[in-house]
């Protein structure tokens, strides 16, 4: 899939060089859509989904001594 993204991007650049501006922008946005899809696929975990449970924003024990002061 990554190869497809770069292939379409290269086609967009070449079309732009050849003066086919509108077609080039269409190719670029096609590769953009595939990129977003691949990004979501890469970060999705069957265990966590899109969440990042290792990021804890609750008050941790590190603040306990401060509270007692």
């Amino acid at each position, binding site marked *: 899939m990554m190869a497809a993204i770069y292939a379409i991007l290269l086609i967009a650049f070449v079309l732009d060089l050849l003066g086919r501006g509108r077609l080039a922008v269409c190719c670029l946005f096609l590769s953009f859509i595939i990129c977003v899809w691949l*990004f979501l696929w890469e970060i999705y975990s069957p265990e966590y989904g899109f969440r990042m449970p290792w990021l804890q924003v609750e008050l941790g024990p590190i603040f306990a001594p401060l509270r007692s002061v």
Partner: protein
Amino acid sequence: MRGTKNTGGRIAVVFDRISLLGMLLILAAILTAAMLMQYGFGEIPCPLCLLQRFAMFGCCFGLIVQLRSATSEQGTGISLIFAILLLVISARQTLLDLFPRPGHEYIGSAIFGIHMPVWSVLIAVALLLGLATRLAFFGGRSYSVMGDGLLTRRLVRGLIIYVVLLCAINFISVIIQCGAGECHTFGYRLLR
């Protein structure tokens, strides 16, 4: 009075072109450095790193469109979209590897003490700031691109061809690393 206004307008156009060229030049340098890191120091890029490179190429595409067009801001819009994409991908990767866990240490070495995804966040923010500042100062100005000097036109043309060549090299590199399937950082799929 009119002469002063014309001179002021001409200076603004020159600064506008310099800002676009500067951003394109810096992005081309960053993408070249990434390739050098990959093949010179054996840093095989992860899938999210490759997507960040793609987002940078998208920004380059927008800047090239903007350098050629003097009457529309289409190129700036394209660059802004891809700068946001770069920011989202790099911020997610930074959060993903924020706490070292088994199998999730930072990928790649640090440059000036800052790791690659964090550099990408900084680059995306700098791009967004640069494009927004350009729009704030020079947005909506229409002028003739033909008014550029021969040297500027040659420089722009050369830089465009260089970016397209870089894109072609990256495409070949992705084929060698990933083939037609999933990308991994273990090695180059086609060289095994």
